[in-house]
C-alpha cells in the first residue's frame, strides 16, 4: 500500500467519526474559531487562492479565483451553494465525505461563507443519498447546538445559516445554474451566461457554487496550512502558462472491474495504472483492462495503453479525454463490449438531457436510438459516421449548447468510436451481415433495445 496518509478520509473507520465530538477531537473547528477571531474574509480568500485549490466538482476551476469574481462591497445577500448533487456515474467521493465526516464539510462551508461574506448557505443534496441526508442533517443540528452555526458564531459578528435541500433526482441539477434554478423551485434548465452566478445567481443575487470535496479541502487547508496543501500534487507546467497546477489530495472513486473497488485518497497526479494496481488490487479475475473511464462517464475513455496518464487536472486531456472530471475511475475489462458501454452511456445521457437545447435534446436521443439499432443487429457502418458527427458537434465547446452536459454526452461517443472503431465495425458486420454496408434509409424499427 502506498505511503500517503489519508487526510480527507481520516474519519473513515473511526468509530462515530461522523459526530461532532469525534471531529473536534481530531482538531476540527479549531481553525474556524481562529479564523473568525483573527482573520478578515479577504485573508481566507487569499489563503485558498495561494493554496492553488481547484474545484473538485469536475471543471477544476480555481476556487479562490471564483470567489474573487463576487462583486466588491455588495450590500448582500450573497449565497453559497454547495453542490452535493453527485450524479456522475461512477462517482461517490462526496457521499463518503457526507456520510463519514459531515463536520469536515460543514467546517469548510463556514470558512467559505466567511470568505465570501455569505450568511446563508444551501447544501443541495441529490435525492438518492438518504444516509447522507440523515448524517448531514444530524451534523447541522449538532453544529447549531454547539454554536458553530447560527447567529454570531462563537461570539463573532459572523452569522451563518445552512439549509440542507434534497433534490428530486436529476443529473442536470449538478450543473451549477441548473442547481440554482432547482433551488429556486423551477425546472432545472441551466441558465445562459452571462450573467455568471457570481454576479447574478440564486434569487438573482451573487452566488458561489462549490463542490462538497472542495469544502472539505478548504477545511483542511485552514487546519494544515497552504504549505502542506501545496506540497501534495503536481506543480504547474512551466511550459504551459494556462496550467495552474494540480495541488492537494484527491478522492478517487475506483469502480468497475477491479478487485477492490472503493474511494481512495491519493495525491493528485497518481496514474490510472497506479490507482488500479496499488489501491484497487488490479483488474479483477486476472483480466486485462480494455478501457478506463478517467473521471466519470462524461470524461470519455482511456485505452489500456494510456493508463500511465497522470490523473491530475491536465492529464486526461492529453489523451483525448474531456478532463479529470470527478476523478471517478471506472475500469472496463477486456471481456466487455464497448458497444454495450456506449449504449449504456447514451441511454444515460438521453435520459438525463434536460431538453433545453436542440442539439443535446435530439442528439442524445438520436445516438441512443442508433445504438439500440446497432445492438438489435441492424447497424450500418454509416451510423458510426453520424455518431462521430454528433459527438464532435454537440456541446458547449463547439458552442451548440448552453451547458456542459452535452459535452459530457459527446465525449464517450467520440472517444469510443475513435479509439475502438474496429470493434464497432466488427460488431456491426457480424450482427448485420447482409446490411452493414447499406447507405439507403431503412424502414423504421418498431421494437428496439435489448434491455
Amino acid at each position, binding site marked *: 500500500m502506498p505511503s500517503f496518509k489519508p487526510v480527507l478520509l481520516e474519519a473513515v473507520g473511526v468509530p462515530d467519526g461522523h459526530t461532532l465530538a469525534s471531529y473536534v477531537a481530531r482538531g476540527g473547528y479549531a481553525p474556524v474559531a481562529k479564523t473568525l477571531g483573527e482573520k478578515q474574509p479577504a485573508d481566507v480568500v487569499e489563503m485558498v487562492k495561494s493554496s492553488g485549490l481547484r474545484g473538485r466538482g469536475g471543471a477544476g476551476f480555481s476556487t479562490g479565483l471564483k470567489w474573487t469574481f463576487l462583486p466588491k462591497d455588495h450590500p448582500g445577500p450573497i449565497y453559497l451553494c454547495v453542490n452535493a448533487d453527485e450524479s456522475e456515474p461512477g462517482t461517490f467521493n462526496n457521499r463518503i465525505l457526507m456520510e463519514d465526516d459531515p463536520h469536515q464539510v460543514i467546517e469548510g462551508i463556514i470558512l467559505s461563507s466567511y470568505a465570501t461574506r455569505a450568511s446563508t448557505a444551501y447544501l443541495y443534496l441529490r435525492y438518492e443519498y438518504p444516509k447522507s441526508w440523515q448524517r448531514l442533517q444530524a451534523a447541522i443540528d449538532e453544529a447549531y447546538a454547539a454554536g458553530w452555526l447560527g447567529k454570531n458564531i462563537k461570539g463573532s459578528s459572523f452569522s451563518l445559516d445552512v439549509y440542507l435541500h434534497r433534490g428530486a433526482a436529476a443529473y442536470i441539477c449538478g450543473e451549477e445554474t441548473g442547481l440554482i434554478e432547482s433551488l429556486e423551485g423551477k*425546472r432545472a434548465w441551466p441558465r445562459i451566461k452571462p450573467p455568471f452566478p457570481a454576479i447574478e445567481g440564486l434569487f438573482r443575487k451573487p452566488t458561489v457554487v462549490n463542490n462538497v470535496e472542495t469544502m472539505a479541502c478548504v477545511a483542511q487547508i485552514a487546519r494544515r496550512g497552504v504549505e502542506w496543501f501545496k506540497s501534495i500534487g503536481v506543480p504547474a507546467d512551466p511550459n504551459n502558462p494556462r496550467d495552474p497546477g494540480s495541488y492537494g489530495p484527491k478522492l478517487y472513486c475506483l469502480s468497475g472491474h477491479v478487485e477492490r473497488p472503493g474511494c481512495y485518497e491519493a495525491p493528485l497526479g497518481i496514474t490510472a495504472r497506479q490507482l488500479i494496481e496499488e489501491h484497487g488490487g488490479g483488474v479483477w479475475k486476472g483480466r486485462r483492462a480494455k478501457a478506463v473511464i478517467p473521471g466519470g462517464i462524461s470524461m470519455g475513455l482511456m485505452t489500456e495503453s494510456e493508463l500511465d496518464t497522470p490523473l491530475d487536472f491536465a492529464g486526461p486531456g492529453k489523451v483525448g479525454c474531456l478532463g479529470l472530471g470527478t476523478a471517478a475511475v471506472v475500469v472496463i475489462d477486456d471481456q466487455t463490449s464497448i458497444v454495450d458501454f456506449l449504449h449504456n452511456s447514451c441511454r444515460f445521457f438521453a435520459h438525463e438531457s434536460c431538453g433545453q437545447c436542440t442539439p443535446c*435534446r*435530439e*442528439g*442524445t436521443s438520436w445516438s441512443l436510438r442508433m445504438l439500440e439499432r446497432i445492438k438489435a443487429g441492424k447497424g450500418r457502418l454509416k451510423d458510426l459516421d*453520424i455518431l462521430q458527427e454528433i459527438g464532435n*458537434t454537440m456541446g458547449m465547446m463547439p458552442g*451548440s*449548447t*448552453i451547458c456542459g452536459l452535452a459535452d459530457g454526452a459527446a465525449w464517450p461517443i467520440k472517444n469510443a468510436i475513435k479509439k475502438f472503431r474496429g470493434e464497432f465495425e466488427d460488431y456491426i458486420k457480424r450482427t448485420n451481415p447482409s446490411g452493414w454496408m447499406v447507405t439507403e434509409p431503412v424502414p423504421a424499427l418498431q421494437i428496439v433495445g435489448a434491455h
Partner: protein
Amino acid sequence: MPTVIVDGKEIEIGADERLNCIEAARRGGAEIPHYCWHPGLTVVASCRMCLIETGSRDAATGKVTMVPKLVPACQTPAKDGTVIVTESQLVKESRARVEEALLIDHPIDCPICDKAGECLLQDYHFEHGQPERRADLHPFTSRKREMGSTVTLFVDRCVMCTRCVRFTREISGSAELMVINRGAKEEIDVFPGFPLENKLSGNVVDLCPVGALGDKDFLYQQRVWFLKAEDNVCGGCATGCSIRTEHNQDTVYRLKPRENPHVNKWWMCDDGRYGWHHLHDPSRLVEARRAAGGRARREGGADDTIEWSDVGRRLRDDLGAAGRLAVAVSPMLTTEEAWMLCAVARSIDPQAFLAVGHVPIDGADETYPGGFTIRAEKCPNRLGVEGVIAVFGGVDAAGRVPGWNALLDHVRAGEADAAWITAAYPGGWIDEETAEAFASLSCLVVQDLFESPLSRMAVWKLPAAGFAERAGTWVNAAHRAQVFQQAIRPPAGVWPEGRLYWSMLGRRGLYDAEAVRRQIADSSPTFAALAGDVPATGIDLRIQQLA
C-alpha cells in the same frame, strides 16, 4: 455611432440601442434564422438555430479577434466593433444540423397542418436544411390534445422553443403552460384542471413558429396561401390594437396582431381576435328600408326597399321635411365618416344637435403583467368622434361634447322632430325602454348592423358596415390615430357609411377617406397631425398640439 460589421459590411447602430446580433444583422440585410427568440419575450437561447460566428474589431488597430466557437446571435449583444458572420461554412453546417435534429421527431404532416405555408420549420428547412434525412429510425407519432377552449396542441410538431410557455408567464401572467418530461420526451402541457384560459390565449398560436399550437377558431378553415391580409385596426375596444385582417373573397378567416410598439406591441386579446364573426352573421341588415308612406313603423306595417342610389336624396328629403334634427354619431364610425355625417346633418338642418352615440362599457380596464390593456370602453373611436363634433361647434356651455344621455334628454324634452342614430355595434345595445324615447319623432333614421328595439320603430332602417368594411381613422384611448383601409366589402351591396355620406355631400367618384382626412386636418388643430402621411403604427394627436 457604434459600428457593427455584418458579413463584412459596416452598419451603424444607435448609441443607446440595445440590439442583439439578430437585430443588428437584420439592419445589415442578413436574416439569421431563429425559433425561440422573440423580441417580446425573455431570451433563452435554447433552439440554437441562430448560432453564428462572432468576434470583435479592435478600435485602435482594426484587428479582428474571433470567438473560437459558435455563439447564439439572440444572446450576443451587438456593440461597437462587433463582427457578425452569418454565412460561414461552420454556421451553415450548424443550422443544417439543428434543422435535421428538429425534424427527427417531427411527423412531417404538412399536408394536413394549418401552419403549412407560414411555418418556420418549413421555411428554414428549404433555406438551411439538408436534402437527405439521415435519421431514418423512428416511427412517427401524431398526437393532439386540448390546451383550453381556444387552442389545440399538436404534440409531435413542437420544436420546444418555449415561446408559448414564456408568454403565459411573462405577458399574460397566467402561467398555464409548462414543459413536462425531460430530454427528447419533452412536451408542452397544462396542469390537469388548469387549462389555458386567459383573454390573451390566442397569442400563443401566433408565437408558435411551427404547427404545434392550433387556433380552434381557424383550424382547417383555410389554407394560409389563399388568404390576403389587410392592415387594419381592431374595433373591439378603445385600445385599438393594430391588426391584420386575413380574408379571402370577402370572408374574414382570422385576425392577427400587427406589431405596433405604441399600442399593442405584438399582442391582441381573444375578444378582439375572435370578435369578427358578427361580420358574417346571416341576420345582418343588408337592405335600406323605408316604412311605407314615410310614417313611423308599425307592427306588420309595410315598408319598401330603397335603391342605394336613391337613399341619399330621399333621406335628405324626409329629414328636411321633419324639422329639428338630432344626430347620434356612433363611436364605431371612423373619424372621416363622423365628419361627413356631421356635415350632412348640418346641411339638412344647420342647427342639428350632434352627440356622441352610445359608448358601450363592459366591466373595468384589464391590464396584464406584460403591459397589455383591454379597455372597458368597447368602441374604437370615442375620442375621434368627440373631436369631430367639437370641430362642428357641437359643444355645450361647459365646453363638453354631448353624449348619448344628453341626446336622450334632448329628444325626451321634445327639442327634436327627427333623429338619425348611427350605431354599428356588433351586439345588442339598446332596450325597449330607452328606444321608447324616440317613439314620438316624426322621422327616425337608424343605421345599424342588426335589428334592435330602436330599428323596429324607425322610418329609415339602414344597414351599417362592420369594422373590416370601413376605411378611415380611429383615435384610441391614448389619442393615437391609426389609419386603415377597407379589408372586405360588406354583404349584398351594402354601402358603408363613408360611401353613403360621401354621395350625400354631392362629392364625385368613390369615397376617398384620405381626401376627407386632409380636409379634417386643415379644419382643426385637434387633427392637425393627420395632414401628412400617417405611419402604419399611427400618430399621437397630442404631440402636434403641444408643438
